């Protein structure tokens, strides 16, 4: 919990400050909206977190969201595939992509940055090709399916947020309570030492990339259901960067071996709150990215300083 304290404080601060300056920010409609976005992006960020913990990166998340977001309605609407089969096909597609990433990175020892950068181009291209650049959506149908994003628990809590919490709990238990989670954190900190201890590092890393792609694929379906209009050339653009930003803000280190699921959820919420604050505080749209960039930078710096203070105290105790 200590590790996520810094980001939690910062999140609360931004929340309160924006709320005081602009009371509309605190209205329940807006809160629900932010929770919904946090849910959708958070699912991607949890996937990114697994890969980042191994010391890798996945830049293809956004394109994969685009691909699965286009593929899912395409299968269901244009091809008339039953929902379950559609799910299975999209899921298989995501698993395959993650498996290929993992194999290239572990067996051929290619760099994760390069592999997933190529993925970023390739999946975007495939999405545009299979759809013929035509917008995809569910129209007015599939009401039951769309409850997956539209339903609100107690009329307040949006479904994507509930899904995020569900996934978050499972991921946190996996990471902290199972031997695989322990292996992942160990190999992220020191891959050689983990291998020398008998950890099958290659399969663990492949597993992390599969988890990341599957969550991105699932996220893509949810985004598509939520937006109901998927433009193949832009849908999901930059999403990998939001996911990575959320994970890093939440305490994941790109060096690997560090990261908590609760931190990642706070981090994603932070990104969404910043985006939303920028809107409410009447920051001109053209400066939006600049502001987001700066706030994330400040957040990471702040977090690093807090950590350093904590370490400083610890070493002093050891010295005396």
């Amino acid at each position, binding site marked *: 919990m200590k590790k996520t304290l810094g980001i939690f404080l910062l999140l609360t601060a931004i929340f309160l400050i924006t709320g005081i300056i602009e009371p509309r920010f605190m209205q329940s409609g807006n809160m629900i909206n932010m929770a919904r976005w946090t849910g959708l992006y958070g699912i991607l960020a949890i996937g990114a977190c697994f890969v980042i913990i191994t010391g890798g990166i996945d830049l293809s998340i956004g394109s994969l969201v685009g691909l699965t977001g286009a593929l899912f309605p395409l299968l269901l609407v244009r091809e008339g595939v039953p929902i379950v089969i559609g799910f299975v096909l999209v899921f298989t597609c995501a698993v395959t992509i993650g498996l290929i990433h993992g194999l290239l990175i572990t067996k051929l020892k290619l760099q994760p940055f390069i592999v997933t950068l190529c993925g970023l181009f390739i999946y975007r291209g495939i999405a545009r090709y299979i759809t013929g650049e035509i917008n995809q959506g569910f129209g007015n149908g599939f009401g039951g399916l769309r409850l997956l994003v539209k339903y609100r628990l107690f009329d307040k809590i949006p479904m994507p947020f509930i899904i995020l919490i569900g996934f978050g709990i499972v991921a946190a238990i996996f990471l902290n*309570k*199972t*031997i*695989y989670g*322990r*292996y992942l*954190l*160990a190999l992220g*900190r*020191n891959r*050689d*030492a*983990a*291998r*020398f*201890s*008998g*950890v*099958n590092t290659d399969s663990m890393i492949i597993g992390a990339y599969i988890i990341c792609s599957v969550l991105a694929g699932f996220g893509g379906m949810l985004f598509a259901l939520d937006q109901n209009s998927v433009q193949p050339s832009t849908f999901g653009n930059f999403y990998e960067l939001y996911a990575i930003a959320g994970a890093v803000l939440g305490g994941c280190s790109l060096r690997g*071996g560090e990261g908590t699921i609760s931190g990642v959820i706070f981090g994603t919420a932070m990104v969404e709150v910043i985006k939303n604050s920028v809107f409410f505080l009447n920051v001109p749209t053209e400066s939006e990215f600049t502001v987001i960039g700066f706030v994330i930078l400040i957040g990471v710096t702040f977090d690093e300083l807090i950590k350093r203070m904590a370490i400083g105290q610890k*070493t002093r105790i*050891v*010295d005396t």
Partner: protein
Amino acid sequence: MTSPLLEARGIHKWFPGVHAVNAVDIMFHAGEVVAVIGENGAGKSTLMRIIGGVYQPDAGEIRVDGEVVTIPSVARATDLGIAFIHQELNLASNLSVSANIYLGREPRKFKPLNFIDSQQMTTQTKEILSQLSLDLSPNILVENLSIGQQQMVEIGKALSQKARLIIMDEPTSSLTQHETNHLFELIRTLKSSGVCIVYISHRLAEVNQIADRVLVLRDGKNSGELAREEVTHDQMVSLMVGRELKQYQQRQIQQTCKPMLEICDLVISELATKPINFTIYAGEVVGMFGLVGAGRTELAEAIFGVRETISGTIKVDNQEADLETPRQAIEAGVAMVPEDRRVYGLIVESSVCDNITLPSLNCYQWAKFIREKETKRVTKQMVEDLNVRTTNIFNNVETLSGGNQQKVVLAKWLSLAPRVLLLDEPTRGVDVMSKSEIYQLIENMVSQEVAILMISSDLEEILRISDRVLVMHEGTLTGELQREELSEEAIMKLATGKQ
């Protein structure tokens, strides 16, 4: 009398849990060769790193030419004329000899643009190489040089910096006899030109040969000083150990004759050599000696499944084992304590508990969930059995001293009850106390019929622990010595490839 070149008084240095240097006084004069000796963990390296600007002393005063100085960085040490030649050489292997010698201080031309004046650099390098009587082209890449030649390049670098005090840390550890002789000649030449050489070594015979004065450290303190005429092997040893070296109690060798590890015609990639054959019996410690680069670590890694083998078979307990990954090796009952514990042995940012249970995590799970009570219990047991000094089993391993870190590495394997234990330099950088504890542990393992292969560069350790010694030279096994044939000379002869 002129003031000494360098004088340090009351130097203290603390590391977490260790008082590495404790009120040490030293004095070096121009034109002398001073050997600094002591056991591993005696504080030699720390002290030298303080003088070389790598570490800052926590207390004490350093004077150069009588003036009080602080040496906050290596650059400052260089300015003061202090050069440090590390045991692991610090050269950029993809650059030429001249580029290495002048790295960061390249002669320049076209002043505002600061182009490198290669011509001048080459000429100056030639001069330095001739001073070293080294017949090399300044433009040859360092990666094409032998270790001995690389070391000469380091010395050349020191000379080009007008060094007056050159610290050499175990300079001969990877040199052939011929190269060592060349180095000694050079040291004598440097000495006559007024340079002071600080010579750190474990090899007492060499110290005897080259040193004008010997400083002995023990447990971070001055233990004594011997002038040229007082230097004898026994004197040095008794100051290093602080007690009469009692004869190692010969363990009752158990004649089990049960082969535990059999290596047949093993050929290892990257060690294109003759196939390797040997057997280790249950309850036996086989020492393995060789100079750096002899391929000992590579051999151990091949057995442990980290390094690819080209051909050959490995049998563990009479069963042919397919050891392609460490996981398979561990399942076959092989464990390895690697040489560089911070890189391969431990995850230093993780806790003692996480480290100890990592290889055996599979034993403490229920449906892949870690049974934390169990891991805690096992860790506590291990910490107690091995006397690992830590205040809490959830402390990060990096807060432990070297000796305790090494005990954690050993503890990782003990709960798995391995049948073959590969130890690669098990006591490197370990304090005297932990060292004897590790030896005791080896004894205990042996009495439980574990087969142990102990790689070590410490001859004394090899002689003390081994029932039998294998020697490697340039990737091949050059010999095997039985207990009664063991002597430093016999081992060194095989290790240097002299038949």
